[in-house]
């Protein structure tokens, strides 16, 4: 399951997403969700075992967070990587 979040990391949508993330899921942060780069202690970074957290590079760059992205544990993906993620996961759930 790939969870796509476009709301800030401490929004209700984010909390709801985190309550459903299971082992082996993927999380992709886009739009306002890339603010999670400013919160190293965000719960989503270790939501469950074996969960990879990706950040859409373009959205981090447009929000002035490229530097924060490089210093974080996030996996940076571009639009092509976004497409690849949607191919890798059989189910996709958007949290908006």
């Amino acid at each position: 399951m790939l969870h796509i979040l476009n709301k800030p990391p401490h929004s209700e949508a984010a909390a709801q997403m985190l309550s459903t993330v299971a082992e082996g899921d993927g999380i992709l942060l886009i739009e306002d969700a890339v603010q999670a780069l400013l919160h190293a202690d965000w719960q989503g970074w270790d939501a469950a075992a074996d969960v990879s957290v990706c950040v859409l590079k373009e959205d981090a760059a447009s929000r002035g967070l490229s530097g924060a992205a490089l210093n974080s544990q996030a996996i940076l993906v571009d639009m092509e990587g976004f497409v690849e993620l949607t191919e890798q996961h059989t189910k996709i759930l958007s949290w908006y």
Partner: protein
Amino acid sequence: MSHEHERLVIIRHAPYSSNALREGLDVALVAAAFGQTVSLLFLGQGVLALLKEQAAGAPGQKATLPTIDMLEMYDIDQLLVPQSALDALNLQAAQLVDGATVVADDTLPELVQRHSYVMNF
């Protein structure tokens, strides 16, 4: 019980706040009308759709409760509410419609995982 081809519709928006609640319920009813097994999970503000004392509001506003009551006729009997969603709104299970089932929060990942189709509203 296998949930392999069952659908889960997640409702996260309160009545009247947007069209999201109505759209989610419509999707659930349409899927059920086509013979699919559908469960509903109410998160956050979505729980407000289950309050049994909901009455008619301002003229022209379509009430939610008749739609909720209709779910059972479509064999949608899984109306799931996590305990934390109730707590966050200071609600008791007794304030919800009879069909609602309160579930533990730690069951949610597995619940979402085992449904082949999950839709978020």
